[in-house]
């Protein structure tokens, strides 16, 4: 039993407050936008220079001057703002975003993140990943708890090339919600049927418990 990617995105969305400025990484994190709780409206930022953009247009109505960082067509809505790339990354590095939510290959208990390179093969590409991990007030990661081969993705130290050092503050995994505090993984929520021992067995660094651990309960989606 583990959460689907959609369910992880739902869980991450519950922590975004009304009016928060949020950057969602390309891919899985983009799904978070669909699950904002009723009554809350975050303002989404995309690196290529839009704040407060709307959903994808209908097929055939794309305007290719109006795209997000994943180069997918988006729309404008009342309150949208356009700006150039230096202003866009001033919003990122300058500490103006409330939350950035990213994917991960590996996360270390130190808060180090590896999410841009799986090694020296092929063509390297970094995009905005290394910028996004700096400056947002919260940097959260959505990730399966283990790799496709069942190996832990939450580790004492990352083995892959780093995206940033000591940058991640919370992990939404397929099994648990874990904060990173003082160089430790602190368990906040876990799936109700999962024992602490079983969770620890698939985690590559010590899980610390401070106070109650809540049940991670997510609707069927």
């Amino acid at each position, binding site marked *: 039993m583990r959460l689907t990617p959609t369910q992880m995105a739902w869980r991450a969305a519950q922590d975004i407050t009304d009016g928060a400025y949020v950057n969602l990484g390309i891919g899985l994190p983009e799904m978070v936008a669909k699950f904002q709780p009723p009554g809350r409206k975050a303002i989404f930022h995309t690196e*290529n220079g839009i704040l407060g953009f709307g959903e994808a247009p209908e097929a055939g109505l794309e305007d*290719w001057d109006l795209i997000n960082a994943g180069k997918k067509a988006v729309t404008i809505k009342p309150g949208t703002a356009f700006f150039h790339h*230096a202003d866009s*990354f001033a919003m990122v*590095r300058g500490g103006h975003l409330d939350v950035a939510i990213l994917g991960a290959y590996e996360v270390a208990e130190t808060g180090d993140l590896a999410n841009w390179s799986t090694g020296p093969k092929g*063509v390297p590409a970094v*995009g905005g990943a*290394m*910028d996004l991990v700096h400056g947002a007030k919260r940097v959260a990661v959505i990730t399966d708890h283990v790799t496709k081969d069942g190996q832990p993705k939450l580790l004492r130290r990352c083995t892959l090339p780093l995206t940033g050092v000591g940058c991640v503050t919370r992990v939404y995994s397929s099994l648990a919600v874990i904060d990173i505090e003082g160089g430790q993984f602190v368990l906040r929520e876990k799936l109700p049927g999962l024992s602490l021992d079983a969770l620890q067995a698939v985690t590559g660094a010590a899980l610390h418990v401070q106070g109650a651990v809540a049940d991670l309960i997510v609707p069927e989606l």
Partner: protein
Amino acid sequence: MDKTVTDPAAAVAGIADGMVVMIGGFGGSGAPIELIHALIDRFIATGHPKGLTVINNNAGNGHVGLAALIEVGMVAKLICSFPRSADPVVFTEAYLAGKIELELVPQGTLAERIRAGGAGIPAFYTPTSFGTDLARGKPVEVFEGRSYVQERWLKADYALVKAHLGDRLGNLTYRMAARNFNPLMCMAAAVTVAQVSRIVAPGEIDPEAVITPGIFVQGVVQIANPAQEETLNRAGARYPEVAK
């Protein structure tokens, strides 16, 4: 003063072998496709310019625009943040064959290096890339308890950009997210040429709406209905067209 240039060929005529050329756009949005194709036309006709260093966020998509510039062999080095796309085959093959050099730069650092180049700031410190492979060999300083990496300005001989409206003095507006790197590149090049959908008389652009002031622009060329990379790629276009 009139910065109007008659056609794309004239706009790119001054670009010589080995020059550093900034090309605006993020993917297809804001990419000056007609200026790039004019540069390719000159290369096909004369063998020049070649050995260019190109600065762009990406590395082209499909077989048009920047990808075509790489495919015909005009680019010796690319400085970019994300050399992947829906169809990155041209850059990928050139890179893996050792035919093109790549300097990979985080996207925000790329933007700020260009801005710094235009603003006369030779170096600056950023938290981005600290502790990563992309910071190797770069000076690090601690400010208020955090570590920052020194990055240097980027400047160019030419910038080729796409804007929406331009007046004869070079004042420019942009369309939506097609702004992206274009205003920064206008500042950072010795010569900036902008292709615009319409050239208007001075005064027709509200001064409050000017995004790039004309001081940063040396030439404006009108391309009334500019091609869009995404549309060309969906149609399977190649540049220059393959003889059938």
